[in-house]
């Protein structure tokens, strides 16, 4: 168990959509284990991986990625999703509203945050470990 005062951060990038491959499953399992071991876990959903944030996923035969994402958030994982990838795929509008970007959406699991690629780069520079999932 990692002591909280020395909590190390594991950054994980997911690059593949759920169900089309098992990368999302693997990431969720590793992330949950890392949380259980006392690591701070921060996840970046990039490209097609933003589909992991979708509400009302209902896989009959596959690993339930949506449920795993909710559980990771409940356990304290920080999940950030690529803003421009999410806009492109219709999850958010990202337009300015009262001086702030509008990320409200009924299509996105509560607790998922949005950031640009610079948010990901910031995470990369802070993290003690970096794990990459997907790419094919």
């Amino acid at each position, binding site marked *: 168990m990692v002591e909280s005062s020395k909590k190390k951060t594991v950054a994980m990038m997911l690059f593949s959509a759920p169900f089309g491959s098992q990368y999302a499953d693997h990431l969720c399992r590793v992330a949950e284990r890392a949380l259980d071991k006392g690591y701070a876990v921060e996840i970046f959903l990039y490209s097609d991986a933003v589909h992991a944030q979708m509400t009302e996923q209902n896989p009959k035969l596959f690993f339930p990625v949506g449920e795993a994402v909710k559980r990771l958030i409940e356990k304290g994982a920080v999940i950030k999703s690529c803003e421009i990838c999410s806009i492109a795929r219709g999850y958010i509008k990202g337009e300015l509203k009262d001086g702030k970007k509008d990320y409200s959406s009924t299509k996105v699991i509560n607790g998922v945050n949005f950031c640009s690629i*610079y948010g990901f*780069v910031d995470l*990369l520079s802070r*993290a003690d470990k970096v794990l990459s999932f997907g*790419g094919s």
Partner: protein
Amino acid sequence: MPKLVIEISHSPFGHENAYAALFAAMAWVSMGNEAVVLLRGEGVHVGRKGQVDPFKNIGLPPTEKQVTEVLEMEGRVIADRRALQMRGIRAEDLIQGVEVLDSGEISEIMIKEGERFLTF
């Protein structure tokens, strides 16, 4: 300076991978960090020069511009020699500044500098 190694193994245009990888590399080096982009397998096509206005022709941006920007910001872009040979691509077909190394040398970089390693 923190280092990031990014491996691209998909060609441009057919997949989003190369663009996503190069955007991450550009953001990383623009913040004063060091990045090494490895072009392996089909990814070597990312480093080819002379891409003919792909945005106009097929609605996708040229990786040539992105690679050039990474190089201009002092990032390294390295193509796998064997992957180039297998595809009949010569060193002179590559964007100026793209290095060509053997797989053993690339492995050394991954081991030595890959404290942050992303695959696309």
